[in-house]
């Protein structure tokens, strides 16, 4: 009996481990599930997963290994934009389809034949946040971002998007991802005259520190965080009291129970949440695990649809994905769109009483 | 007091002591002379336990010493003023002396220190200065004084007269003689063979890791071979 080998390269450890760890867990879990259900057309799927520690050079090496040595037919992974760019170079050169889990738009723009991605772009996140701000009449905002890839890239996107969406960024501060205190930056932001809201782009523990410092300084302006913290862990680290009222764009994943029963994502989301929490020993789901979930769903479906388990055939099948409902949104790939999501997939969430609330 | 039998020691794979036998009686002053590289320093290092022994035994005051770790030997009455002085350069002169009495933190330390200062007044003058700044000879004095702070029953001196002014060389040999009166046993390694043999009761001659001659100091001084090879007369 032949095996279908699927490759994965994620940043399970290293600076992006809070993203990569749930991704790795999800990928492992879903391959198990797949095999438990009988595999693909009767063939078992075998997962080869490597941890790149967040280092693009390592990611490239592991991608090469997957393709050249392990002989995988498709790859998922690339937790950060840097690692994704490294992997996609290998994917394109060796013509093996790759579904990236990172945010930056350059991964799929311009479209490359073998590269796809599941997360929203950070540009879309900025758009979503700014839309919500404008709806509340907030147009003068302060920006604070982490200096890591995620924070810096989203900062750049938000500055670009702000120009066209009538938002004025009057303060632009940064912090290191492991800094212990951000009160000086927040003090400066608070002091900007006419400022109406604050947006933080970042992931990991930094945003939690921001949120606590925000409360410490008694700043009452609305605080927006990015989708990088869309997980219950964020509320825990920030303290529910401090996080009260914080808004962020997230996926349906965190608010599965609150979704309209008719919402097509509801079942997908609840099922993934239940499975993940069981498999991960109670660790809370995060948006990032969701991206991996969607990537695996897309890949599984393509494997089932494809006439053969050859990379080229799989690629074609992935590109043909339409109406696939994932935790992040509904995917419709095409020759010209390897992202397959639109803004509607993002939902504006608000933290309320230590839990999540959908902003209507 | 101190008996060494068949002592062997090596640096890496090269053996430099090939079975040394040596005996120091209680209250005796015994000197070891020998050319550069004969193994005198290595012998003393073995006695203090800072050099691994690969064969033979050391017995001190009737007890086997070979297995006793270096730091326990001071408390048992064995102190050394080592070659190259080995003072604590980053600590003050006074702290060096106090550490000499590390194993006996009691009132007698102050008295001993006063004695040491009486012996070497310059050390008292420089007591609060970092020992690393002392002149070579001053450091040598400090090393000797520090060894005495260890209240040795048996004192091991490795070339104590090195770098000392002639006046002090004479004084050091006086001190050694004086120790005898205090019932301190002394094992003295010296290049100043004439001086050493003059104060010693007995002497050993070492050549390339072996004892080649042994006898009362007076006899050795008179021995033509010793006179030619070590006294240069």
């Amino acid at each position, binding site marked *: 009996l032949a095996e279908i080998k699927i490759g994965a390269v994620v940043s399970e450890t290293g600076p992006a481990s809070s993203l990569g760890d749930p991704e790795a867990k999800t990928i492992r879990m879903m391959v198990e599930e797949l095999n438990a259900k009988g595999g693909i057309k009767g063939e078992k799927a075998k997962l080869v997963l490597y941890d790149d520690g967040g280092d693009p050079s390592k990611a490239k090496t592991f991608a090469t290994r997957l393709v050249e040595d392990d002989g995988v037919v498709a790859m998922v992974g690339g937790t950060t934009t840097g690692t994704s760019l490294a992997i996609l170079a290998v994917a394109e050169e060796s013509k093996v389809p790759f579904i990236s889990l990172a945010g930056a738009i350059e991964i799929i723009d311009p479209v490359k034949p073998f590269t796809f991605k599941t997360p929203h772009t950070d540009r879309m996140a900025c758009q979503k946040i700014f839309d919500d701000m404008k709806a509340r009449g907030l147009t003068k905002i302060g920006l604070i971002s982490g200096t890591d890839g995620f924070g810096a890239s989203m900062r750049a996107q938000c500055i670009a998007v702000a120009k066209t969406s009538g938002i004025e960024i009057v303060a632009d501060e940064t912090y290191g991802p*492991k800094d*212990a205190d951000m009160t000086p930056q927040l003090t400066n932001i608070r002091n900007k005259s006419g400022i109406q809201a604050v947006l933080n782009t970042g992931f990991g523990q930094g945003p939690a520190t921001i949120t606590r410092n925000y409360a410490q300084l008694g700043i009452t302006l609305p605080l927006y965080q990015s989708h990088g913290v869309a997980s219950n862990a964020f509320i825990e*680290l920030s303290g529910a009291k401090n996080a009260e009222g914080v808004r962020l764009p997230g996926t349906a994943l965190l608010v599965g129970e609150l979704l309209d029963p008719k919402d097509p994502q509801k079942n997908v989301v609840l099922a993934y949440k239940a499975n993940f929490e069981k498999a991960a020993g109670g*660790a809370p789901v995060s948006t990032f695990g969701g991206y991996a979930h969607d990537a695996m769903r897309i890949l599984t479906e393509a494997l089932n649809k494809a006439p053969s388990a050859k990379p080229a055939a799989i690629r074609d099948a992935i590109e043909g994905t339409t109406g696939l409902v994932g935790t992040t949104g509904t995917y419709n790939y095409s020759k010209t769109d390897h992202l397959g999501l639109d803004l509607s997939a993002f939902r504006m969430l608000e933290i309320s009483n230590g839990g999540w609330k959908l902003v209507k | 007091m101190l008996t060494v039998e068949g002592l062997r020691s090596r640096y890496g794979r090269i053996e430099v002591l090939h079975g040394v036998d040596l005996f120091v009686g209680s209250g005796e002053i015994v000197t070891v002379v020998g050319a550069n590289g004969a193994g005198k320093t290595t012998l003393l290092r073995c006695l203090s336990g800072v050099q691994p022994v690969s064969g033979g035994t050391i017995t001190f005051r009737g007890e086997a010493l070979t297995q006793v770790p270096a730091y326990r030997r001071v408390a048992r009455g064995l102190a050394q003023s*080592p070659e190259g002085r080995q003072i604590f350069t980053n600590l003050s002169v006074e702290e060096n002396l106090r550490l000499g009495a590390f194993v006996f933190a009691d009132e007698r330390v102050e008295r001993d220190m006063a004695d040491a200062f009486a012996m070497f007044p310059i050390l008292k003058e420089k007591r609060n200065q970092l020992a690393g700044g002392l002149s070579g000879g001053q450091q040598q004095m400090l090393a000797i004084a520090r060894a005495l702070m260890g209240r040795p029953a048996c004192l091991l001196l490795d070339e104590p007269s090195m770098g000392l002014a002639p006046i002090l060389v004479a004084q050091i040999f006086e001190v050694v003689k004086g120790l005898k009166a205090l019932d301190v046993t002394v094992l003295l390694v010296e290049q100043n063979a004439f001086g050493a043999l003059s104060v010693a009761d007995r002497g050993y001659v070492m050549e390339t890791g072996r004892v080649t001659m042994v006898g009362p100091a007076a006899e050795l001084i008179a021995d033509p071979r010793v006179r030619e090879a070590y006294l240069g007369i």
Partner: protein
Amino acid sequence: MSDLLQFLVSGVTVGAVYALVALGFTIIYNASDVVNFAQGEFVMLGGMISVAGVAAGLPLPLAALIAIALTAAIGVALNTFAIEPARGAPVVSLIIITIGASIFIRGVTQIVLDKGTHRLPSFSGDDPIHVLGATVLPQSLWVVAGAVAIFVALWLFFTRTLTGRAVLATSNNRLAAQLVGINTRFVMTLSFALSAAIGALAGVLITPILPTSFEIGISLALKGFAAAMLGGMGNPKGALAGGLLLGLMEALTAGYISSHYKDAVAFFVILAVLFAFPRGLYGSNPVERV
């Protein structure tokens, strides 16, 4: 004015965190000239083990005590099984051992505990204290008090106790230390135990401010190392001053110049200080005659 005060508060808080780590470096360094790159892991262990203890239902003080004791034991084990067997190896080799140990400890923590990020509850609540328009979290006061207390203890240890002197003597001249009857092996064991315990205590104190995870140790060690060198390695005074100075520089740069380059400015100042004082602010200048 209140802004300046807020920046200072922030700087002192962060600086105290750095100082705590830097203080941990001093003992092992003073005993062996080795900068123990696993010091950050001791801090991490203090936090992570306490977190696990609290999660298992223990009261925080008990969990903290267990964390400190366990970490000290790990420090001793590191010395016994890795540093002591390599005695006589060049200092760089010993440093590499500590780097290996830090990777090892991180790996074990990730397996035995978890990969998550955790926070301990603040010791005296999260209600900010207002002072002249600035706000301070009570936990910051705990951290500062901890740094000062450890500093005083270490300073007394090294200047007032014979054991402290023995530690210094051991690194200055291990051979001579043995010759005067110092059990250098015990000195090393003690140093690792104390360093690890100080690290763990630091971890307990800072985890309510700076959430911990198995990977937090490296960045803490880096900053702590920089702080210790700024102040002068080996001197508790230097560790405290270096830590606070580094924290203040970062906060004031973030406040008045630019948060983008706050770490850069901090390193610039370190470089500038070292050019003026090649052994840090309080580093001792060894006199070696030739």
